[in-house]
């Protein structure tokens, strides 16, 4: 701290520095100090684990035994690993099944919330409620709803004469149930982001359209959606990151023994579940690390595609 306490004296001698664009050294130090928490925390909890995971992925690393250097063997093994590809397909499948209806629903919901409603704040807060519910609670409740023998969903299906479905057993049904959980939690949250964007759309555009005789549907299609495009891209990017890291919902959905394998034939095991299974049940720490890195790459690629989309959209605008 001695340098910091020393600076004011020097500053007084050169008053110019205080007004200059560079700022005094004291100010610089303060600036760095203010931004440093993020970088320090990121370095400890973000960058270091990232690089360490890569280091681990180059080893044949047993969690309790020792480890030996194996170069790119883990990555080579990964390409031939059916369970890995299965998990990747599940992850992307559940992601699409969850995200597409979710974004559509939140857009509609945002449009509704943007109307003149009675108790508008209550509704707007209400849609966020599912999001602040503990994810474990969501998982447990929905697993009970989708239970084979005494679940509410099967009971309702029974009322219209449909045979009970063993939701965990089939690929389509398990994906559907898990997507429902994801949507229940995130639709309201995304609706609020859309709502914020909707309110930033200039009123004059709608007024002008109304004068020109455009119907509400046409206004939505030709004003709202184009104005929301950057937000849509942002929301889908965030959903992508969340969707590819999906873990708790499918894990809790498979209650009981062997939960981590995501069903008897791994019909709903996601990538993160596979990482976890390899690392902690299989104790193949190195291999799990390589799966984690490939997952990172997948997210990066999808993020890149999103970024390109944004640039193209800007060009169009």
């Amino acid at each position, binding site marked *: *701290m001695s340098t*910091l*306490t020393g*600076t*004011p004296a020097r*500053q007084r001698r050169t*008053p110019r520095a*205080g*007004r200059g664009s560079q700022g005094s050294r*004291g*100010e610089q*130090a*303060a600036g760095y*100090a*203010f931004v*440093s*928490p993020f970088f*320090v*925390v990121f370095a*400890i909890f973000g960058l270091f684990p990232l690089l360490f995971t890569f280091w681990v992925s180059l080893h044949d690393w*047993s*969690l*309790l*035994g020792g480890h030996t250097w194996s170069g790119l063997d883990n990555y080579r093994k990964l390409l031939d690993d059916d*369970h890995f590809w299965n998990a990747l397909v599940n992850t992307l499948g559940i992601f699409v099944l969850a995200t597409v209806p979710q974004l559509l629903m939140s857009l509609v919901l945002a449009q509704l919330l943007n109307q003149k409603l009675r108790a508008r704040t209550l509704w707007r807060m209400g849609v966020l409620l599912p999001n602040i519910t503990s994810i474990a609670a969501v998982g447990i409740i929905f*697993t*009970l709803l989708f*239970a*084979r*023998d*005494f679940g509410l969903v099967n009971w309702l299906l029974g009322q219209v004469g449909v045979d009970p479905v*063993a939701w965990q*057993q089939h690929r389509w049904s398990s994906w559907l149930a898990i997507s429902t959980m994801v949507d229940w939690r995130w639709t309201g949250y995304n609706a609020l982001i859309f709502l914020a964007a909707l309110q930033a759309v200039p009123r004059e555009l709608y007024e002008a359209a109304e004068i020109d005789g455009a119907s509400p549907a046409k206004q939505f299609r030709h004003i709202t959606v184009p104005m929301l495009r950057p937000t849509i891209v942002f929301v889908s990017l965030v959903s992508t990151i969340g969707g590819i890291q999906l873990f708790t919902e499918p894990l809790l959905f498979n*209650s*009981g*023994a*062997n*939960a*981590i*394998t995501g069903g*008897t*034939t*791994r019909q709903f095991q996601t990538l993160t579940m596979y990482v976890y299974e390899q690392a*902690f*049940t*299989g*104790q*193949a720490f190195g291999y799990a690390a390589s799966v984690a890195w490939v997952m990172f790459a997948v997210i990066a690629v999808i993020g890149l595609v999103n970024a390109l989309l944004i640039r193209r959209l800007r060009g169009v605008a």
Partner: protein
Amino acid sequence: MNHQLRATRRIAATVGVLLTASAALAGCGGDSDGADATTLRVSVFGNFGYEKLYDQFEKDHPGVKVVETSEGDLGQYNTQLTQKIAAGSGAGDVVAIEEGQVVNFLQSADKFVNFQDHGSNDRKDQWLPWKYQQATTSDGTDTIGLGTDVGGLAMCYRKDLFEQAGLPTDRTEVAALWPTWEDFTAVGEQFQQGIGSDDVHFIDSATNTYNSILMQSGDHTYFDTDGNLTIEDNPAVKDAWDTSLAMSEAGISAKLKSFSNEWNAGFKNGSFATIACPAWMTSYIKEQAGDENAGKWDITTVPGGGGNWGGSFLAVPTASKNQKLAIELVDFLTSADGQMAAFEETGNLPSNPTLYDTPALKDATNEYFSDAPVGQLFVAGATSLQPVYLGAKNQPVRDAVENALRSVENGEKSSDDGWSTAVSDAEAAAG
């Protein structure tokens, strides 16, 4: 620029640096206890029935507090324990290790206190020989855990459902119905016809029965003692597979996944009439079925003679800061008195053979299970126990085979396809 503003900036800079420093240090904060009290942290899974023993230990050691954390799900517990042992911190002072995991932890025996350095060899006769050996390295020089209970096998059944199906309910008569697993299946078919309902089945699932049959086969299961995968060479595995699937094909299985919500509810709702129950299962059944089902359950012998499934050890990680006290606590809990107290609390069968002749154990009955002579039943199972060697990768292989078995039971795969999946997944899991 006035003086005050500059001072404010200086303070801000200082605060910024301090915040950063404290954020960095937050992770290192110690959970320091009061200066005078020592806290011993014990982590177990399920119910070990140690509450009264902790009270006793605290009374004998003033200033010592014992805090237990219990995890309900064994798989979850194993995962967390492995992480903490590998990381070298956070595991606590005393940890329970399940039979299926002990070989796994023997790989890093240096992370656990060697009880032989604390005189365990002099008290070897306090455990069944194979039980003591299970937690000892193959060269015999390092014992990482002391035995608590063994999982002597018996069969639990619902008397009321048996009566409805027109079967005998007396436990000796019931035992006479099923000397072998084939007889058991036949009784199941009879039961299914008698009960005439799709909501009630004879067994809970193929997997539970499969594990019981496999653990009766003795010697080894998926791995031989050299650590080679023997799933295809060991006929016992395929036998257990075929026998349990035959039950499923006969339509007597409720197809409920072990430890799932539906399975738990099944105890209460009477979705199944029998379940293979190692001694530790009795307290689980009691807990799940609840008071309203008291007296409806009974226990009898298991088909195919005795067997062992499960049972645990207590170990002290070398990362523990209170090793001396922790070792004392383990000695106390695994002593004859400690095992007996746990038996009275939970029904977990002691692994101490000197107890098997004592009237306290031999004459013990379980009120919840229609006063079944549990002491006699489980001790009879225990004396015919065969030590079974489980490899380090037993859990992942078992998971793989159970998954395949369930996929066949659920009708997703044929038995042949399921078996080849089981073999290939087991090979992948064994690494």
